[in-house]
């Protein structure tokens, strides 16, 4: 939740800009003036606004603009599940340990159980429900490789897997492991999950 409300009108976050211009580059060095100019931008911000009661939250969930009433303390997870009936993300540990609540927030994989909904105003939330489920998809690979049993952790695993593959289309099995290390399965379906991720990597390239 580091770069909230830093979206420019063009839709690219400041972080995207920095990633693109600074760190994706091999030397990863930004010169002094870059920070100075950002500081100037910051100085123009107005005094702060206090939200203390219920407030209207607008966010884009799976491509659809959604609105609901929330309190500042509502987590993104509980807002999705209790208020917007988006129940792919599950509440399991509720403390950023198990990954069942994983969603994609403005392109980043996050735990929605420890993300405040109010901090997501205007942001784009993608959950497992929006993913392609065709024959070249990650969900399909989970089914084909039986990477699930009771299925309660599965939306979180599928989400983590998909983002991992988006960033790294040719993962080794250890990279897959690292990619889903933020998720826990109690039925013990990891073998199928790892096979599914590797299979999805293959078919997605073929697609």
């Amino acid at each position, binding site marked *: *939740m*580091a*770069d*909230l*409300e*830093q979206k420019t009108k063009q839709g690219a976050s*400041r*972080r995207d800009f*920095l*990633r693109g211009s*600074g*760190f*994706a580059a*091999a*030397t*990863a*060095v*930004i*010169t*002094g003036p*870059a*920070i100075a100019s*950002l500081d100037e931008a*910051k*100085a123009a*911000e107005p*005094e*702060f*606004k*206090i*939200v*203390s009661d219920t407030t209207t939250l607008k966010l884009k969930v799976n491509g659809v603009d959604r609105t609901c009433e929330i*309190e*500042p*303390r509502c*987590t993104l997870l509980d807002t999705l599940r209790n208020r917007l009936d988006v129940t792919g993300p599950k509440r399991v540990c*509720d*403390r*950023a*340990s198990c*990954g069942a609540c*994983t969603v994609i927030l403005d392109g*980043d*994989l*996050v*735990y929605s*159980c*420890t*993300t*405040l909904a*109010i*901090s997501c105003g205007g942001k784009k939330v993608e959950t497992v429900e929006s993913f392609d489920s065709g024959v070249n998809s990650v969900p399909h690979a989970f089914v084909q490789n039986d990477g699930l049993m009771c299925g309660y952790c599965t939306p979180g695993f599928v989400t*983590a897997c998909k*983002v991992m593959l988006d960033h790294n289309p040719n993962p080794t099995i250890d990279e897959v*492991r*690292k*990619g889903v*290390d*933020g*998720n826990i399965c109690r039925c013990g379906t990891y073998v199928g999950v790892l096979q599914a991720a590797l299979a999805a990597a293959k078919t997605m390239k073929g697609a």
Partner: protein
Amino acid sequence: MKAFEYVSTASADIAVKALGGVDGAILAGGTDLLSRMKDYVTTPKRVVDFNPQSVVQKETSPGGVPTWTILAGTTLADLLASKALREELPALWQAASEVGTPQIKNMATIAGNLLQRPRCWYYRSGFGLLSVKDGKNLLREGDNRYASIFHTDGDALFVAPSSLAVPLIALGASATILGPKGERTVMVSSLYQIPKRDSDRELTIGADEVLTKITLPAPQGKNATYEARQKQSHDWPLVLASVSLRFDGASVSQASIVIGGVAPIPYRAVEAEKAMFGKPVTLETAEAVAANAINGVKPLSGNVYKVALTKTVVKRALLAAVGNRYWEEV
């Protein structure tokens, strides 16, 4: 979670203002604060969602030592994405790579990592930092497998939780802090203190101050971190050590050795640093130096194993700095 007022800002000035005069808390990555709030361990009246920039950069000033700057809002993911950082500050990169999970790395910021509160299970169960109840120190008398082995004479027996503090202290990093009276810069090691009373905090930063950036001089030698933990997936280190070494030829001319997971503050192994002076880093010297790292150790009833672990971790961090990873399976 109890209800609270919410303020969001990317500006440190505004964050300081918003924190003024209220029982407030800074929301950085959120994984620590919100978990504590859900457990009613922390119940702020106002949450200030301080979301500054995520920027890592290295500046060269003519004639001087280059300086690394990491702004408070830098996520671990962005830190890890910097190739230059990986090459020049492997101690920091390694420690960051072992923190959390892909999700946490996207959420957690460097400031949030440095200023997170202890994971001590008595603290998290609501018994306070010192976990003293009816005159009994719960951690001393109870399950202290993860507790301190140094500075155990007092009541603060939890271990400092930040993995990043360990390499940053070894690398001589400073923290810039903004408060109502303006800006101040302290060594990262000075962010931590050993609380004496339950009302004390283990952090020296004021309740109305915010950490804005970390700076450190580009190291003039080699540095490394080694961490031991039970699980290979998401887990906390049992013990980790970071070293930063300067060399005069093949011999060490200056050593910083900092250990995490062993004390209520990141623990500086001064005697080991002295013992390293003037010697090359070999299996034998590292072993001998590591033995000095546990001078003065006073483990509790259930964490004697950490003493051996500490020796190993220090030895391996020293050897990792010079590229000797003797423990890795072929």
